[in-house]
Every structure is written in structure tokens, then in C-alpha cells.
């Protein structure tokens, strides 16, 4: 795949998962799953280190040979994970950051929708549209 985006609930089950190219979807799920440990580690490190970083954006979680995994966690402990192909060098940290920001904004709208039940998978078309836009942009 070129790029994949996942939203994980507080209790660590997926709320939304989408990736470009379906043949390697399983690998994408696996990558997101393994990244959760790194997210957990980063969250629990708060207060222990001197340079107390408490930004919502967690940065690059871990790089491997073929892809890069970025993480973001909201105050409600919902995690966003973006996976991009390593060959995609045009993508800067700032752009990833603004992608997360956009995702978070849209997610907030979903949460404030009275017809959405918190904890249910995200079925919002508006959210879907935002994600599609990002995939086109980065893919």
C-alpha cells in the first residue's frame, strides 16, 4: 500500500481502518496493531522524563524498511495512526501533523453528532471524505 489511516478507541479496538490497495491489508492491520505498544509506551512515559512532552502529536513511532508509522493521541485516549510508504520522501513532518489535526477536527465533529454512539465504528461520510482526500493527496 501507499498509505493507510486508522483510528483506535480508548480500549484499543479499531473504530476506523482504511488503506489504499487491498492486497496487503492484513499487513496494514498488523502494522497498526504493533504500533499500539509504542503509543502506550509514549503515553505512560509522561511525567517521568525531564523534557515532559505532552503534545497530542506523538511523532514518528517507528520506522522500518518499507514504511513509516506516525501516531497521535487525543485527550480522550483515542489514537490515530498514519502509515506511509518509506519511498514517499516528499512528506514532511509538518504535513503529517496537519493531517492529524484535520483527522482530529473531523473526529470531534463525529463525536458531537447526536446520532453517533460513542464507541461505535465511525460511519460518517464526512469523515470518510476527509480520509479519502488525504489518500489522494499522499498516495
Amino acid at each position, binding site marked *: 500500500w501507499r498509505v493507510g489511516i486508522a483510528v483506535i478507541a480508548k480500549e484499543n479496538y479499531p473504530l476506523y481502518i482504511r488503506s489504499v490497495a487491498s492486497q496487503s491489508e492484513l499487513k496494514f492491520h498488523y502494522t497498526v496493531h504493533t504500533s499500539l505498544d509504542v503509543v502506550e509506551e509514549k503515553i505512560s512515559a*509522561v511525567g517521568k522524563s525531564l523534557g515532559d512532552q*505532552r*503534545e497530542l502529536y506523538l511523532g514518528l513511532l517507528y520506522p522500518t524498511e518499507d514504511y513509516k508509522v506516525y501516531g497521535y493521541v*487525543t*485527550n480522550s*485516549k483515542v489514537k490515530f495512526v498514519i502509515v506511509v510508504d518509506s519511498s514517499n520522501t516528499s512528506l514532511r513532518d509538518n504535513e503529517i501533523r496537519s493531517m492529524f489535526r484535520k483527522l482530529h*477536527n473531523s473526529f470531534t465533529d463525529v463525536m458531537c453528532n447526536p446520532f453517533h454512539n*460513542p464507541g461505535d465504528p465511525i460511519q460518517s461520510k464526512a469523515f470518510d471524505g476527509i480520509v479519502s482526500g488525504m489518500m489522494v493527496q499522499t498516495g
Partner: protein
Amino acid sequence: MADEAPFQFLHSEVIQYVFGASDSGDAETGRNITKVESMGFRVGQGLIERLTKETSRFKDELDVMKFICKDFWTCLFKKQIDNLRTNHQGIYVLQDSKFQLLSHLSAGKQYLDQAPKYLAFTCGLVRGALSNLGVKSIVTAEVSIMPACKFQVMIQKI
């Protein structure tokens, strides 16, 4: 000034709608209070999601409670909680000496028995906000002289 009025009117209307005009039995009143509280819960969940969008991650429980007392309360009632106490064992008492939703009832003791209706929604708001931030709690309210009001938050340890 102008944007607090619609919330106050809507809130009284919700209570009017849920409880109805007639005085019903205790069981019915209890059920209705639960209903209003769960409405507040859902609103609290959504609201806190929006309010914490720009803030950095919270350090601990006390940090979360301070946010509720300052930013959350200001957003809802245009003022902060006047006094926050804790026993550092999971009990927090939030004191508001002039609670907005009670301020239009006559001060003193005349309508004291009606007060629980007007506090249920706010209890739900606080519980919903905390729950979305990962803190399970029980929130109760207490009034002795209107319009002062105390909210007690008991954190449920998992």
C-alpha cells in the same frame, strides 16, 4: 451575556418537558432525573472532546479536575468553580457559590425540594466529560442554600 440565555432557557425547557407539569410519584421523579442525567452525560462526552482539542495531554487526575473547574465550567456557565477540594483519595468537591442554573430560582429554602431536577443535567455533564477522558466516576450534587451548590465527584478505581 447573550449566549448564556439560550442555554438557560433550553435547560429549563428540557426539564419542563421531561418532568411534565404535574407532580408525579417519587419513583417517576427518580426515573426522570436519571433520564436528564444521561442526556447530560452524552453532551458532556461531546463537549469535552471539543474543548480538549487544543490542550496538551493531562498529567494526572488532578490536572483533569482543574480543567473541569476552569475551562469546562467557564464554557458552560461563564465562571469558574469557586472552590475545589480533594482528599487525594479520589473524592473531589466542587463548590459553586452562585450556580447559574439555580440563580433564577428564588434564593433561600423555599424551592429546595425542586433543586435536584436542576442539578441532574450538570451532574451528567461532569460524569460524561470525565468518562470520555478515561476517568470513571459518580457525581452527586448537594444544595443547602440556593444558589450555592456543591458537586461531589467520586472516582471509581478500576
